[in-house]
């Protein structure tokens, strides 16, 4: 049977602001319970919300990054429901008039590039947390997270497989970090996805959907969607009916299960929040934000490709903005021939070192310029690969530029052919037995002779050059 999978994704990205969306309380993670819950956050009688400028700026950045419309006028509404982690009894969110409308995101899957259309992105506040450890049969409420600024990003139902869903989530995750609006920390809940999943026969109307919550890793997202699709298809093929519901993914059992759907069919009674006025975003502000934005991933990727990198190689530099900045800065002024090698040095030895010491690209002990000069020394024959690694390690330990290290350690390859020929002559004279063996057809003897020459030059000779000279002399 042929089923089409239809998925829409809602993502809550915690915005990179020091204070909450409507209060001056800190958003720092991990504080003692309720110590970052201000009068506004715990909804004392008489308190009022005032909007954080940084949160709005983040939303504008996002809108610009995905080519969306920034609504010049947007409105905050109240979503009314009772829950202990929701102190006001309503969540302040944007409903009819969100700040960001439309836009799209390009994702890369095994089938190639694909565009996922966005419906909207709106500002809202986060709720607190219910802790279910047993307090004599009671739950504990921590409101530190209440009022944390969020951007909820909603896609059109353009996603058609678990793989695409993950590709989308990863691309979005990279983008929000790229433009500095979210730290992307999934363990701390800074980036949370919900997936609306349904299945249908090709060309049939949309099927009944289930909203899957709690997808706090890319792996869980993939597993949850796969499980859910299978569950829905099984029910439908057995002639059963699906109900529209919210389901929670349980990674321990690798299954989704229904969340209390019977309790009052939600009726959120949205209406414009009278404590907040319409949010107006001026053209000048948008231009200012535009001017402050880093180059976007698409443009960066294009530049890497223009340097002659293959898509896979280019993608390896796209894991973060810093990574691509480092690569482009290393490539600038490098000889065209050196670029593939430079790219390998960055994704190989340099990344390994950064990982080892948990450093960001900006904190690298070897600068992009130093790396470029090192690779140039390989290219001009000064260094062998092996020597280059030694120089790199020395650079990493702060011994200075490649040339200084080469000088200090006397690491220059012997490329003066008369000097090499002299040493070869000495070696041939001292190893008559091997020469004889070689001439008798024992190929191994040749390698032994090369070894002797390299030893005599303390490894500074260019092995290729030695090879050539030795072959010439032995055949003479």
């Amino acid at each position, binding site marked *: 049977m042929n089923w089409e999978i239809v998925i829409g994704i809602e993502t809550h990205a915690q915005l990179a602001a*020091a*204070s909450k969306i409507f209060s001056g309380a800190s958003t720092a993670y991990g504080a003692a319970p309720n110590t970052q819950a201000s009068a506004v956050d*715990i909804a004392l009688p008489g308190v009022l919300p005032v909007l954080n400028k*940084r949160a709005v700026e983040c939303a504008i950045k996002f809108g610009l990054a995905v080519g969306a419309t920034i609504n010049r006028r947007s409105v905050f509404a109240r979503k009314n429901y009772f829950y202990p982690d929701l102190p006001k009894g309503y969540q302040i969110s944007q409903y009819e008039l969100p700040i960001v409308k439309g836009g799209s995101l390009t994702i890369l899957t095994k089938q190639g590039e694909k565009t996922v259309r966005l419906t909207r992105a709106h500002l809202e506040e986060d709720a607190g947390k219910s802790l279910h450890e047993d307090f004599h049969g009671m*739950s504990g*409420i921590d409101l530190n997270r209440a009022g944390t600024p969020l951007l909820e990003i909603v896609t059109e139902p353009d996603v058609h497989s678990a793989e695409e869903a993950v590709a989308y989530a990863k691309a979005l995750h990279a983008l929000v970090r790229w433009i500095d609006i979210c730290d992307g920390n999934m363990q701390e809940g800074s980036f949370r996805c919900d997936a609306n999943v349904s299945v249908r026969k090709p060309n049939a109307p949309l099927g009944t959907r289930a909203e899957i919550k709690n997808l706090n890793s890319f792996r869980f997202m993939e597993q949850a969607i796969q499980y859910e699709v299978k569950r829905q298809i099984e029910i439908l093929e057995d002639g059963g009916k699906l109900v529209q519901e919210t389901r929670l993914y349980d990674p321990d059992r690798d299954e989704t299960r229904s969340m*209390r759907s019977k309790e009052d069919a939600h009726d959120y009674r949205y209406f414009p929040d*009278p404590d907040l006025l319409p949010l107006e975003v001026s053209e000048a502000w948008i231009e200012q934000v535009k001017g402050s934005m880093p180059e976007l991933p698409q443009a960066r990727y294009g530049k890497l490709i223009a340097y002659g990198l293959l898509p896979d190689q280019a993608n390896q530099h796209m894991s973060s903005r810093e990574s691509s900045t480092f690569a482009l800065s290393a490539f600038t002024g490098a000889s065209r021939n050196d670029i593939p090698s430079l790219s390998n040095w960055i994704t190989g030895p340099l990344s390994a070192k950064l990982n080892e010491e948990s450093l960001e690209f900006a904190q690298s002990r070897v600068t992009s310029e130093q790396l470029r000069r090192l690779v140039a020394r390989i290219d001009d024959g000064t260094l062998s690969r092996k020597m280059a690694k030694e120089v790199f390690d020395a650079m990493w330990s702060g011994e200075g530029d490649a040339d200084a290290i080469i000088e200090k350690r006397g690491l220059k390859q012997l490329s003066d052919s008369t000097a090499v020929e002299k040493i070869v002559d000495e070696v041939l004279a001292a190893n008559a037995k091997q020469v004889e063996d070689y001439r008798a057809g024992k190929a191994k003897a040749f390698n032994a002779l090369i070894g002797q020459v390299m030893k005599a030059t303390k490894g500074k000779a260019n092995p290729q050059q030695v090879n050539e000279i030795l072959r010439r002399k032995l055949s003479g």
Partner: protein
Amino acid sequence: MSLSLDDVQRIALLARIAIDPGEEQTVLDGLNRVMELIGEMQAVDTTGIEPMSHALDVTQRLREDVVSEVDQRARYQANAPAVENGLYLVPKVIE
């Protein structure tokens, strides 16, 4: 338009207000009296009229993103019916 007892039960649940079965009719009568008054506006043709949310045509002011609050948990929780280890306690929340 008048409400039914079912409506009363539905909105009382939404509003989280318990109503004794014995009071339901009285509550319903009161609500219907007010809904009668409210119903007077239904006949007015308001086509083309822009809804008015705020008295004055002003826009939202923005605050700078600065942490201005200090921890006042102890003072805030002095009013709380039940707290333990800095947490507000409520009957078990079932997910």
